[in-house]
Structure formats: structure tokens, C-alpha cells
């Protein structure tokens, strides 16, 4: 990895952390409503995987899809951060025009195919995106991020089976943070090692890695993505990670111990990557401080400002986007005799 890339990745992860922190505040200020699920702690996964995916090429990007904890996945795929924030503020300039909110960020122009609130629902959608890419003969792949809890849904089983039988180019990225809301994985899952659920059962290659270390994520994600793209087959990659905040805003975290939290905080992907870069002499503590300041300014003066100042959707447009705006009259016009 180039030094510039390292610095860029560190900056990105810090940005993602601060972005989510600012969302937290905005929620407390009641600027954001509904359910809000923050990504703090897991940054290395989305950052690392998507850095290895094809992005920055608009409609040629790989397809990315995930659950409700989706802000960072969207931004890293290419959705402008100010549009994501505007979405959270429910504005017409938001990624989903204020219709979707935190759990439903979409940016079709970047092939960010959405965040979904039904746990497990993205599995088949992802396989379908992959089927589309394959059918069109592009070499795009689909990348599906999902939690450890989601893997207990029937859609996991059904989709992995079909993805394998039909050789679909889809990468399943399991972000194993050990919990589904307040239920620990050992209490819900017969095989807690997620990657072991797929190899023999579906003839899909799989592996497990440290999701708190961006360099590991980058390396392993690259291998997996190359495999999927080249072999036109699914792959299942599991990253062990942890969320530093509650499941959503209303979560008191009574289900886990402070000790466990502290243990994982030792593995903070940003802190450790910072330390490494400092050790390697690529950056200083002060540089990082400056970077943080710059990021905070950007968030405040550009992103939040944009979100604040943007207009809300018009109430008269309530029923817009339910169906196709301009369907061909032959399919929905008056009946021909």
C-alpha cells in the first residue's frame, strides 16, 4: 500500500467516526428522527472492503447493498456525505429525497443499491444484482454487507444456495459484531463461526478475518473480490468486529459487560491504525489533530449546513414515486377495443 493511501484511509475512517458522532448529536437535537443505527467501531470493514471494490466509476461501480446501518457504506461507495446527512434531516436534497431516512440511503448513480430495514432482506436482492451484472456481461460484482444476526434468516440459506448453483458473482461480507441488538451470538446461533456455515453447506468459499485492522481487511477483501470477479462465483467473507455504541439510539447496552467493551476498545481500528502510521513515521499526533479539526469543519460548515439549509420535500408530492411517473400509455392508458 502506498503511503498516500494509508493517510487517505486513516482520514476516511476518522471522517466516518466523526460523521456518525455528529449524527448522534443531531438526533439529540431532534434534527434526525426515526431509528438511527451508528457504525462506530466497525469502520475498518466497510472502508477496507469498499476500497478494494470498484467505485468512483458511477454506473460501472460494483453494486453495494446493506442493512439499516448504512451511512458509511453509502458514503464510501460514492454517495456525497452532505446528501446522506440531508437525507437524515429528511430533506429533498437527501440521497433518497427525504423519503427513506437513515435506514434507507440510496444512491443509484453510484450503484449504492440501498439500506434495508428488514433483517435478511438484502441477501436475495444482492444475488439478483449479481445476476443482472452477469447477464449484462459486465464484470461488475455485487457486494452484500450483513450482520451476524441476519445470517439466521431463511433468506441466507435460500440465497447462498442459489448463488452457488447459479454461479453468481456476489461477495457476502458478514460483519460479525457478536450481537443482534441485545442477543449475543452464542445464544442465537448453533455455529457462531459464520464462515463455517457456508463452505460445505453451499459449496461456497469462505474465510474469517480480523475486522478491526484495516490492513487485514484490505488484503483479504482484495483476494475475495478478485476471486468473485474472476471466477464468477460467490464468496463469503467474515470480519470479526464490534460496535462501540448501542444497537440504535434507544439502546442501554445492558446486555454486555463494560469489560468486554474495554477489551474491544483496545482494538479500535482508528486508534491502532493511527498508532501504526505514527510508528511508521508517516504522520504525527499533531497531523491527526489537524486532520480531525479539518474534518469537523467540513462536517459543520459544509455537510450540516447543507442539510440544515436544504428544503423539505413538498407535501403536494406525497404520492410521487409510488408508481412510475410517466408510464407508456399503451400499458396503462385507456383500453383499446
Amino acid at each position, binding site marked *: 500500500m502506498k503511503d498516500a493511501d494509508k493517510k487517505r484511509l486513516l482520514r476516511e475512517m476518522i471522517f466516518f467516526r466523526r460523521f456518525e458522532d455528529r449524527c448522534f448529536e443531531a438526533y439529540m437535537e431532534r434534527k434526525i428522527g426515526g431509528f438511527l443505527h451508528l457504525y462506530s467501531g466497525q469502520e475498518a470493514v466497510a472502508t477496507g472492503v469498499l476500497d478494494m471494490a470498484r467505485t468512483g466509476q458511477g454506473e460501472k461501480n460494483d453494486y453495494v447493498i446493506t442493512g439499516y446501518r448504512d451511512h458509511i457504506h453509502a458514503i464510501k461507495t460514492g454517495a456525497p456525505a452532505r446528501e446522506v446527512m440531508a437525507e437524515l434531516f429528511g430533506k429533498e436534497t437527501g*440521497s433518497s429525497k427525504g423519503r427513506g431516512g437513515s435506514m434507507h440511503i440510496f444512491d443509484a448513480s453510484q450503484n449504492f*443499491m440501498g439500506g434495508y430495514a428488514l433483517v435478511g432482506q438484502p441477501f*436475495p436482492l444482492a444475488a*439478483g444484482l449479481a445476476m*443482472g451484472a452477469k447477464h*449484462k456481461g459486465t464484470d461488475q460484482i455485487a457486494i452484500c454487507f450483513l450482520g451476524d444476526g441476519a445470517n439466521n434468516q*431463511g433468506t441466507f440459506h435460500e440465497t447462498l444456495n442459489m448463488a452457488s448453483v447459479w454461479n453468481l458473482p456476489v461477495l457476502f461480507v458478514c460483519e460479525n459484531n457478536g450481537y443482534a441488538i441485545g442477543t449475543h451470538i452464542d445464544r442465537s446461533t448453533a455455529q457462531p463461526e459464520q464462515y463455517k456455515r457456508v463452505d460445505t453447506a453451499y459449496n461456497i468459499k469462505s474465510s474469517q478475518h480480523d475486522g478491526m485492522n484495516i490492513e487485514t481487511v484490505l488484503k483479504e477483501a482484495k483476494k475475495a473480490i478478485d476471486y468473485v470477479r474472476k471466477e464468477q462465483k460467490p464468496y463469503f467473507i467474515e470480519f470479526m468486529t464490534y460496535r462501540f455504541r448501542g444497537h440504535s439510539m434507544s439502546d442501554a447496552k445492558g446486555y454486555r459487560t463494560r469489560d468486554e467493551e474495554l477489551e474491544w476498545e483496545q482494538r479500535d481500528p482508528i486508534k491502532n491504525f493511527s498508532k501504526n502510521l505514527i510508528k511508521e513515521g508517516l504522520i504525527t499526533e499533531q497531523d491527526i489533530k489537524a486532520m480531525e479539526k479539518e474534518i469537523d469543519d467540513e462536517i459543520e460548515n459544509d455537510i450540516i449546513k447543507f442539510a440544515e439549509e436544504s428544503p423539505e420535500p413538498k407535501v403536494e408530492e406525497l404520492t410521487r414515486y409510488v408508481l412510475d411517473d410517466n408510464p407508456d400509455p*399503451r*400499458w396503462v392508458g*385507456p383500453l383499446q377495443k
Partner: protein
Amino acid sequence: MAETAYWEAIRRAHDEEMARDKMVIAMGEDIGVAGGTYKATLGLYDKYGEDRVIDCPISENSYTGIGIGASMVGMRPIIEIMSINFALLALDTIVNAAAKIRYMSGGQLQCPIVMRTPGGTAHQLAAQHSARLARMFMSTSGLRVVTPRGPLDAYGMLKSAIRSNDPVIIIEHEQMYNLKEDIPEEEFFRSLEGAEVVREGTDITLIGYNYSVHLCLEAAKRLEADGISAEVVDLRALKPIDRETIRESVEKTHNVLVAEEDEAPVGVGSEIITGIIEDCFFALDSQPVRIHAADVPVPYNAKLEKAAIPHADDVYQGALKVLGKI
């Protein structure tokens, strides 16, 4: 014009659209090698190959979801669910995903899938194979629901559905696949909206959809013998409902009956009657009547089954009741 069976009409629409556009694919259980339970895709596996006529494992929820995902990037999947009873397994992906993705994404994405499935009672298939369920789809924002009554609509609406950019649910009927009708040999389309007056009359409006249109037509014939002129309206689309055509007919006849095969309560019948109450309450000369199935799971025994579902005679008797003749 060529005499065409309902299943042949569906097959022809598949074939033409698949020949025209390689983004059109068919998915479902036993639709490929086996040609489809009702032959809707017969021969197409050999013609278009296994990548376009896709035999699916028994995984309704996820292959429907895969179809939806594929539709988001430009494909046009026609998904066959072998029986509407099994569609409940896929309801999450249809109702929570396909129907809402355009809206949630602020219009950026669309899910132009077609889901075809037979709903209705056949002969003694019992409770788990006799569901009708039109009500569950027609009450979901973001879907289109159509119910072709014969080969003309079966062909023309499927063609339109494939080209429509909205998710379209086509409810067929196990008892109609062999129904025949002359249809044009040149390509045509039938609108996914709009009810149709399939028989003109002046004394009473009989409203049906899908199979129940035929019950209405049969009843209309019997009423004619009694000197009663019945107009028959085929709803054709259950979402959106063409309230205008209904209103016009009711304002002409002043009497109305709705025939649905679904078990009441809560369904097509109640929605149509309520719409009439909202649109032309004061045009009514009599209490509207709905004919529907009994509120029971469908029994296996033939006599019980017969008693559970509506027949032409029920429509006939119902019409007489509306008109105060019994």
C-alpha cells in the same frame, strides 16, 4: 385471429417478449425442463436456455427477491409462483421490498418485475392449495394487480406488465388455463388499468374479476331469460381500481352486485361497495350485495367445497335479491 387457450396466450407473451429483449427472463419452479405446471413456459427452456428460463429451488422468498434485485439493474424477470398459496412465503420481499423501493429511494430505482400466480379454488385441493388472496396484494401501495379473465387479457396484460416499470402481480386461476378465445395474431397490448363492460345491460350491474366474471356472465344469461337486463363489468385491475367505469354503470342501472371468489370479510367486494357508496350513493335504488366464499378454510370434500365457494347460481340469486324479486 387464432383460437388460443389461456395458457397458450401466456406462453406466447413470454415467447415474444423474450425474443425481443434479452433482459426478459422467466423464473420459477419447474418452469424450465418441465415446461411449467400450467405450460406457461413450454418449450422456452430449449429455445432460450437455462440462463433465461430458470428452474428455481423451492425457495419462494429468495428467488422472488433475486428477481427483484435483478429488476433493479434493468432485467425484466417474470416470476411464476406455482400457486398463490406459496406467495405468502414471498410476501415480505414483494410488499416490503418491490412495492416500496421506488418510493424509499426517492424514485431512483424501480422494480419492474412481473409475478404471475394462479389464485383460486380448483377441484378439492383443500385448504392449503385453494387460497385466493387478491386482497393481500391489492391493498399494498406500490404494486399493480391485474386479473385477466381470458386469453385476450392474459396475453395482452402480460405483455404490458413486462414492459411496465412497476411491479405487477398477475393473478391467474387454475380453472381458466384451458379456457379458449380467439385473439389477434398480430402483437397487441392490453392496459393494466381500467375496468371493462363485457356485457351491456340496464337493470343491474354485476361486477366480477378473473374467474368470477364468468359467474357473472352465466348469471346474466339466466337473468335475461327472466327478462332482466344485466350489465357485467370486469374489473380487470384490482390496483388501481377503475372507479369511473363502475360509477357510470351504477348510475345507469341503479342496482349492483359484486362477485368475488375470496372469503369475506375484507376484500374486493367490500372495497368495491365502499367505493360505490363514496362515489354514487344516491344513484342506488337498492342495497348492493356481495357474493363471496364462506369464511372457512377450503374443505377437501367435494360437497363441502362446493358449499364454500360462490357459483353462478349464487350470483343469479343475489341479483334477484338486489332487485327485490326474492
